[in-house]
């Protein structure tokens, strides 16, 4: 069971502002999904290696060649608040 306090903690980690109704609903829904997920506990996984990806590739390298990158204007074109060639954000201290 995921209680209200845990929901608020996880929401904070995920930078999601939830209203009271969302917190209630999330608590019930996450609990029901996790109950199902926990059926995995039936399996013996002793000594089984984890799989993080199915492709065998490791440390794929390329030649250190200079190539064109995204021009600054194009990189800033979708920014909500570009300023002086940069991405402007509100103060972290406010």
């Amino acid at each position, binding site marked *: 069971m995921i209680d209200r306090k845990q929901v608020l903690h996880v929401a904070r980690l995920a930078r999601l502002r939830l209203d009271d109704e969302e917190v209630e609903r999330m608590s019930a829904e996450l609990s*029901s999904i996790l109950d199902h997920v926990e059926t*995995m506990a039936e399996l013996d996984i002793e000594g089984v290696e984890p799989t993080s990806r199915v492709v065998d590739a490791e440390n794929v390298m390329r030649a250190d060649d200079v190539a064109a990158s995204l021009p600054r204007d194009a990189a800033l074109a979708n920014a909500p608040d570009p300023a002086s060639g940069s991405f402007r954000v509100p103060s*972290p201290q406010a």
Partner: protein
Amino acid sequence: MSDVRDLSVAAGLAAIEARDLAAAEWADAYAGLPDELGAYLWRPDEPIGGEEGPLGGVPVAVKDIFCIEDVPTTAGSRILENYLPPYTATAVERLLGAGASVLGKTNMDEFAMGSSNENSAYGDVRNPWDTDRVPGGSSGGSAAAVAGGLAPCALGTDTGGSIRQPAAFCGVVGLKPTYGSISRSGMIAFASSLDQCGPFTRTVADAALLLRVMQGADPRDTTSTGIAAGVEMPSREDLSGVRVGVPRELASEAEGMEDGVREVMERTIALCESLGATVAETSLPNARYGISAYYVIAPAEASANLARYDGVRFGERVAAEGLDDMYELTRAAGFGPEVKRRIMLGTYALSSGYYDAYYGRAQRVRTLIARDFENAFADHDVLLTPTSPTVAFPLGSRTDDPLAMYMADYCTVPMSLAGVPAISIPGGLAAAPDGGPELPVGVQLVGPAFGETALLDAAHALESAIGFDTNAAWRGGADA
């Protein structure tokens, strides 16, 4: 010819070759058609592309998860409502390079999270077989466009069934190639170790045509390897000598399988035998844990991938005094309920104290499921399952129960976890348990990693024997 819209990709290319059709006329036949299904989110005034090439003139609808330079790309989310990508996805670039013509961007569940297309921020898509029902998801717009006569083929993405399940619900062909076959560059990320691009088509041969052009290693996606042996056009007329395995966990023992789906499966097995295949029951003992492992791994990866939507570099922003308030309010306003649920689930599964119990365990279960497939392919050339335990369900019938919605992917998630290729083809029609017109049932064929040529060959032989009319929905129902 009676109607340009009847043409499969292969037939259209042949008609152009024979000078019965001008390349430009093909896309023009689709441009400006009324879209009563809500399949498209955006259509250009003039189709994009359409040069000479192996796919010269082929009109294609593109799921709105693929970036196309300066073309609105939302991934079905409010947070990308005004986003204009600065570059084009490799898969789309390859299609355009081969002469294809983009008809528009198709509707989808927000960030590809969903099985009914009801999680789109831009409205529902309707199933062309019964407009009160869902088209499936998350690539619901692409499936509806092909089945609804609004495109001869489309691009989708499949993370846990998002191509195969909507293809089954809409009565068309949907292919999820081996993980790594097609570059993910420019495909907006959901769960990077699972996401794979693939085609929706009206025939298996058409799926091969598109795959041949799109597959291949790409320096912009280091997990893309391509299919080293290449992809041959399917030509098989029977299944003699093919060893078909039916995994009982995803067939006779599958949870919640409808009678109509069961009957189509039985008919399909009989048909495989009459085509010369040997059919035997087999087992994927850990496949029943697929949904559990998937709903830890996919949300965990999503919670990391979606951290980029923070109102700084692109996407919508909600103004606030402080940086943290800006992040939290931006994400609260920009994401819909299912995306928030998955971010929460993934963040929880990765959080301190729970990582081993959830994420670590799910990754080990993933290994067990991948081994199950390796074992099955030691004795079988191809596996056969239903694509979904049910036919298309009514709009709104599962939106209040996330877990019931997740179960729609019961038969498709294990292949995604194992990375193996799988294709859904229409197996026939069946009655829905709640009445209404008969609806398509998809059957899924699964092959070993990078075994696309043999998989498509088997699917082609089976498709010919089934004889399903993938144009029936838009021409006026199954009776037309």
